[in-house]
């Protein structure tokens, strides 16, 4: 078995509002935004990091963490 990355984020479809905050993740609506944070790092490397994170409570009661990258792609990540 090939070694893989632990907790690797996976792409997820996210609908956003005019302020860029998520309104739905997949088919589940966002009930509330618990936290919002920004990570900008590694600007001096070949892989600069710029991620806008959200911790969300979805309509099914689940608590998820998603982030967007500058190219508009969204990912979900285990907390």
């Amino acid at each position, binding site marked *: 078995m090939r070694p893989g990355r632990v907790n690797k984020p996976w792409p997820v479809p996210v609908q956003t509002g005019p302020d860029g905050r998520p309104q739905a993740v997949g088919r589940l609506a966002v009930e509330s935004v618990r*936290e919002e*944070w*920004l990570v900008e*790092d590694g*600007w*001096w490397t070949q892989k600069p990091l710029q991620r806008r994170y959200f911790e969300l409570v979805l309509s099914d009661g689940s608590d998820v963490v998603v982030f967007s990258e500058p190219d508009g792609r969204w990912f979900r990540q285990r907390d």
Partner: protein
Amino acid sequence: MSYVELHCHSAYSFLDGASDPAELAATAAALGHDALALTDHDNVCGAMEFAHACKGVGVRPIIGCELTVEVPRRLPRPVHVTLLVENARGWASLCRLITGAHDGTREGKGMREPLPPTLPIDELERHTAGLVCLSGCARDGAVAGTWERGDPASAINLAERLLRAFGPDHFRIELQRPLWRHDRSRNRWLASLAERLGVPAVATGDVHAHERSRSPLQDAFVAVRLGATLDESEGLRRGNSATALISAEQAAARFRDHPGAVAETERLAERLRFDLTRELGYSYPGAEDGSADRRLAELCRVRLVHRYEGTSHRAEAERRLEEELGLIQELRLSGFFLLHQDMLELAREVAVEVRGPDSARRLLPPGRGRGSSVSSLVCYLTGLSHIDPVKNDLFLGRFLNEELTEVPDIDLDFPRDIREKLIPRVHERYGPERSALVASFATYRARGAIRDLGKALGLPPGEVERFARAVDVYEASRDAWARMEETLGKLRARSPRWRALAELLPEIAGLPRHMSQHPGGMVISTTPLIELCPVQPAAMEGRQIVQWDKDSCADAGFLKIDLLGLGMLSAVERCVDEIARTRGQRIDLSRTPLDDEQVWSAIQRAETTGVFQIESRAQMQMLPRTLPRDLDDLTVQVALVRPGPIQGGAVHPYIERRKRLREDPGYEIPYEHPSLEPALRDTLGAIVFQDQVLEVAMALAGFSVGEAEGLRRAMSRKRSETAMLRYRERFIEGAVGQGVSREVAERVFGQIEGFSGFGFPKAHSAAFGLLAYQSMWLRVHYGPELLCALLNEQPMGFYPPDALVHEAQRRGVEILPPDVNVSEADCRVETIGATAGSSGNPPVRIGLGYVAELTGDDAEAVVAERRRGGPYLSVSDLAGRSGAGAASLQRLAWAGACDSLIEADAVPVDPDRDLRRPALWEAGGVAHASRTDEGAQLALPLDGSPAPPLPTLGPWDRIVADYRTTGMTLGKHPMELLRRGLPAEVLSSEDIARTRDGARVKVAGMVVARQRPATANGVVFMLLEDERGTINLIVPPPVVERCRLAVRTSGFVRATGKLEHREGTTNVVVSTIERLSPEELPERKPRQIAPPIPQETGRPAAVPLAISKRSFDGVREAAMAELAASLPAPHSFGRRGR
């Protein structure tokens, strides 16, 4: 909705904030903020600059500080609170608190860096009046930070404690939103705490940059501060760009859950009305003294009689004194002059202690005035200046005039040793709470920035250093970027980390890095200084500094007294002492004849190495053309080689007119306008002195003296284009109104504008000119003593010691190497048993203190033990008695200072044989005494094994050893050895003097100085030294670009160019220049390190292996590199250092 930023760091939060106060103020204005607070970490260093910057852009400045507080027994680490000043009382409280936080930060022994400032919380609770306290930042704040670290009980306890200390009107819970993971939960908790305590919450941004693009630099600063790389410092960096200044709309969006906290910023700011630029309430001791006018007048009148009795200037002096006294009284400055006089009296007491009552130096005044104050008769009479302003016709207006708006500056120069003692004595006289040194802030320039940022980015140190050395010290950071590709290649320069470095360089340029002390500016106050500006201990024991630099102190109206240490004054004093010791003559320099023909002809021949102010390469080029004949000429000469006169186009007209006047005494000087003749007569129609700018503006355009001084300040301080335009219009209108043609008025203003670079006032130049003459007089009549004094006062002047001794050797002064049985710790002129050198002068003996890495204590101990117990008989005797450690002994042996001990061993010695290796061998094998507080603990007198026959140190190795140990070589000049490998067509300095003008020549030499003056449009001037003398190179910009590394970094170069002989000066205008390549080194065999076999085994030595040409090349390369690494630092682009 409005928002006022109440928590903001500038670059004065050293290595944390990434923007300067002006950038913050301008951005706040652009974002539409009415007010902005500055809250740097534990200081108010940038507060005055910030206050003025804000006022300039219509933003109301609020002053504060983020103070580090410790809570003993409750919290394991210090926390932050944000303090904001409400009124003048609050400012005094803040200054006391910051002073308290820095108290004791320098008390540890042997500390290079101070301890971080922290204030016990009970101290904070004692000085809360007039301050508003916010509960602190998200990460390290007293309340939020403690919550973040999982201790809500302590956070609540601390909030309640601060609330009790400041009261509900003056305490707020601070909410921040740095866009970190737990912002919202933390703020929810803080908001509920605020509600429970009954105080409002207030939103702040914890700003660290004026805009987001500056955030990478802020990251890099954190890494630099921690001495780590960016990768290593991840957890301690801010992690994003959210700490840039934001608009009210952005603040509302960011704090959408707490709109009340945003509204509170405006309500609170409305109360914070303290105006630092107007409410400081400073006065200096004596300012309110009602009797000061009378006392000053009496003192001056009595001294005037004494000074001018029987001279032709008396009437003029009396008239001028009354006029000056009237002006001083009108400006209410009598107390100011008396305070300075008091300071001088204090200096006199200190001088007696330092010099000793019987010293030959006692005849010298304790210090001398410099700068524009030398033009004041009151200064002359009170001893603050040594130049007669009446006899020298010095213009007062630059120093004092009826429109003066700031306290004038009086600068005093002291010998270094007197100044050392005087500064703590001033603290004693006026009290530690009322006097302190002025701060200065080291700002980033290209090289330092490359080194710091390179390390933070984790770049290879060797390459970072290569790049740093390839840029000019004063080179603009943007230009430095261009050097990267050139130095490291395209591949490197385009890699992300190097590109990041290139992008950060322009951002960091000019930002303050750390605080240090001004060379000598002191402020003294009637009210405790620590309520006017925080005071902190300086690195030197017994000294303390205010947190403002000279500009902020001037803006605050502080009286600043400059007590400057002048190396040449120290050297002159040492020289006078040395003359008394060696020749028994007591020299009173105030009585030296000013018309000494020998002195003037030496000046005209530019034989001025080691002479104050006229020793530089540029001055030496000028002297044979201007041919100064008296002190007036020298006064002009000193001022002539400055950026002001050079850019103002004064130099060539002055030289040309002097020449014309010499040829034709009836030559009429062409003035731009007849009204300028009185102002410019002394300088033959050219504007050379700063005060002539004032006089010209007054004569030609009818400016008042205050207006003219305003024009000068607009030109020199922070040059304002708008202000200059206004002055230009006013100047031309005024001149035209006086009947001057517009064309002439514009031309003269152009000259004034060109002058806007740095220039000397005539008074300053007269003071320096006199010291230049005196040092020249000493050089001519007491050459060895002056050389000795210069060597002992290093670092100073233009030339490294190596160049000074070579020049002295060329004029016949004998210089002897260090010797443990003869040398003192300092260099001395030898008297006992010394034979005069070929010049008839006694020789100079290099002191043991010149041996690098020999501690001062060891040098003194070697000398003291020799005095006590007689000469050392052997290396083991030296080791056993002196207490010098093993490393020190080895340095002494390697410097040749133990050669006499090997001779004393009575081993038959070949006179040409080098003795350093045997000495080093013996030094390695002897037992050492150790030094204790009670004296030397003697070692057993065990002799080490005598040295076996060791390979002789060749001349090349000897030179390297000389440079490595003493920084100078007294035997063969390196060029003498290198000459053998050079083609005959490469001429020496002596040859080119005999070669015709215009010839194409090849020359080579060791680089002594390289300069690229801002006024020379990219031309580099280099001074080479060979075994016969010196060679001046002029390297035009295209050659500089083409041969950049050779010009910038090579210790030895070979150049081809056109020879120019002009009016007594010789230059080579270079077309190609390269470093001396290894092929041109004398051949040297690889070193045989193993001991010779016959001594060890009795068997014959093996036949040496054949050595290929390639090995020889390697040896040459290594030898050249070894020497280059050991050479003394040349005068390189504005500073002595590589």
